[in-house]
């Protein structure tokens, strides 16, 4: 156990946790007035087998009825509009005066350095976690 862990444990023990007689009595009285909920047996709320058959059958009938209704009341095909007027869309042309950015060698070097620093930091954290827990 390291210094911090020892100190945390010792400091926790310094917290006075004496339960007063009054509280003890209060808890006891509350418990007396309660009945624990009964353990639920797995089969207690299960439905009878015929329920699932009836439920499945109802579902199938409902689905069939829905399909039939949809097909019977299928909407007539919409009339196609005759020669809709086509308005030409004119997009304004934009002149871009942009230059391609070129990474100079110091920037590339910096990215590599940062990546290697990140890798080192990740390894250090992993080692710390493995060491502590």
């Amino acid at each position, binding site marked *: 156990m390291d*210094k*911090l*862990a020892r*100190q*945390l*444990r010792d*400091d*926790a023990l*310094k*917290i*006075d*946790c004496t*339960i*007063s007689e009054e*509280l003890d009595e*209060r*808890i*006891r009285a*509350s*418990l*007396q007035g*309660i*009945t*624990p*909920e*009964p*353990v*639920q047996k797995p089969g207690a709320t299960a439905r009878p087998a015929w329920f699932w058959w009836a439920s499945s059958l109802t579902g199938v009938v409902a689905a069939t009825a829905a399909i039939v209704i949809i097909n019977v009341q299928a909407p007539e095909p919409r009339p196609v509009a005759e020669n809709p007027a086509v308005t030409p869309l004119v997009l304004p042309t934009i002149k871009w005066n942009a230059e391609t950015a070129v990474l100079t060698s110091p920037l590339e070097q910096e990215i590599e350095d940062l990546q290697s620093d990140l890798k080192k930091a990740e390894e250090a*954290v992993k080692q*710390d*976690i493995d060491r*502590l*827990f």
Partner: protein
Amino acid sequence: MSNEVALIAAARKGSVAAFTDLVQSYRPGLFRFLLTRSPSYADAEDALQDTLINAYRYLHSYDARWRFSTWLYRIAINNVAKLRSAETVELGDLRDERSDPLAFCIADSDRQNLWQCARRRLTDEVFTAMWLRYAEDMSVNDISAVLERSASWTKVNLLRGRRILESELGNYANDDKSKAYG
């Protein structure tokens, strides 16, 4: 452990005496934890009472694959959360020592109790993880179960909590040195 199983079975059948025996050894630790998490001493007492009542009432839902303490702490944390949402008190902002149960319950010492510092500097979840690890000696897996977090979250946040408290410890040490050398 077998004794605990027998007590749980008896308590499930309605024996208050068995339940009282069952939770007897957990009560001090639980109350300590609630004192650190509640805005007042009275609230901590109420939270303990509610935790034990809920544990007794819903004992049927306890799954024996988990440690009993893990389950008990889960209930306690829920109760504290309810209490906090009702009162909307930020524990980190407690400035008045008269209303702070932790300041009231800590014996006089030459330095500040680290848990007071932890409460000020850490988030609720990280504080709880640190408490379960270092005050209750729970495993990372049990802490993850109590907090409903992954084991890797727990490990990373325990490490984060440690780092923060270590830096605080370093500050105290520097303060002491500067006092000693004027």
